[in-house]
């Protein structure tokens, strides 16, 4: 109730500025149950459905001699495999992780791009949970890799007591390493992606809300000139968001690969 009132007064006084309430939405479907959905989750489900249908049809019709669309999809797959996975871990180690990193990259990319798709207008990764779940997957995988490749003891010893460091330094270093291994890696992955999506949405929405107010709702027609400026900024920020969407998907996939690779022994 209170929020709605604030919204109303804002509309009367000035532009409808985006707030963090854009990310804290009312539950629309199944409210109050564990399967409740708000707008972002609806976007996420819809984006997933679209992605699965498009890629599913592509995969079902996959041909030896690719058409344009298949060639584009293959280019992305080649990019993830060669430029991310094999680049970081090499082919021998990397083979096992290609499906995982491809899943991560493509899903995060599609979810991020929802932020600039008209109608969605919010990234499906723009709640803390979705990035956190991906980071959790990464966390589980680098622990499994470490335990499988070195054994739990050797893995923990390598991680917590890095070689070549004078013994007293471990007093400082080991707690940091524990923190790094348990918290910093997954949380940094999560926050980087989430914060980028939140700030991206707020920036774009701010530009467009200002444009709307200056050009249409505003009381002063001279200020419409400012609206042209904010519209240009909105256009630029939309394109910038496109870049950020790709970049963040790439960074997430890259860091996940790197973290898993760190669990492997140094020499193959």
């Amino acid at each position: 109730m209170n929020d709605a009132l604030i919204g109303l007064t804002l509309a009367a006084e000035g532009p409808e500025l985006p707030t963090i309430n854009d990310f804290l939405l009312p539950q629309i479907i199944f409210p109050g149950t564990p399967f409740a959905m708000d707008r972002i989750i609806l976007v996420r489900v819809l984006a997933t459905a679209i992605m699965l249908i498009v890629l599913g049809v592509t995969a079902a019709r996959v041909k030896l001699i690719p058409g344009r669309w298949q060639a584009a999809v293959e280019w992305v797959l080649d990019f993830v495999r060669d430029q991310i996975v094999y680049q970081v871990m090499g082919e021998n180690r990397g083979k096992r992780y290609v499906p995982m990193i491809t899943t991560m990259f493509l899903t995060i990319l599609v979810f991020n791009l929802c932020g600039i798709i008209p109608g969605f207008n919010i990234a499906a990764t723009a709640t803390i949970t979705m990035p956190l779940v991906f980071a959790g997957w990464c966390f589980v995988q680098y622990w499994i890799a470490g335990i499988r490749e070195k054994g739990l003891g050797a893995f923990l010893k390598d991680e917590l007591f890095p070689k070549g460091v004078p013994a007293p330094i471990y007093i400082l270093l080991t707690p940091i390493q524990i923190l790094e291994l348990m918290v910093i890696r997954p949380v940094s992955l999560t926050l980087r992606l989430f914060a980028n999506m939140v700030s991206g949405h707020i920036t774009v929405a701010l530009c467009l809300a200002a444009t709307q107010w200056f050009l249409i709702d505003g009381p002063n027609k001279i200020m419409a000139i400012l609206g042209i400026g904010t519209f240009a900024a909105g256009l630029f920020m939309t394109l910038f968001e496109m870049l950020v969407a790709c970049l963040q998907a790439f960074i997430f996939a890259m860091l996940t690969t790197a973290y898993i690779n760190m669990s492997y022994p140094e020499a193959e």
Partner: protein
Amino acid sequence: MTFAAEGGISLFIPKVYDIVWSLIILAIVALFFYKFFMPKFQAVFDERAAKIEGGIAKAEQAQKDADAAKAKYEAQLSTARVEAAKIRDDARAEASHIIADARSRAESDAAQITANAQRSIESQQQQALVSLKGEVGTLATALAGKILGAKLESKDVQSSMIDSMLDELDKK
């Protein structure tokens, strides 16, 4: 214009239903990629690689076959050339042989013909001599008888006379 300051922290607290939906979606997406999407594309990548490798191998095989065929052809050609030369030489040798043969046969034939002619001349001469001897003998006897006026009755005298006469004729 105030941001909900007390609500800010809730941005970073995962909601239960959000966790549920994130996990469900991750599971679906991962299942899709692991079980369907990646294997489909991997199969095509593998098939393509095999095709390309097969194509290269096939081209290499074809090249090898062509090289072998060329070598074989060249070998055959050189054999044929050698054979042709041999046949030509043989023919030439045969021809000269035939010519020499013919010549020698002609020569021997000629020699034989000459010899035969010689022989026939000799025999004819002999014959002529013999018949002449007889004729001359009779003629001479008759002549002598006429001259002597008496018949030389005795055969022995007759022949001894003729012989001695002929001997004399021979000596002349």
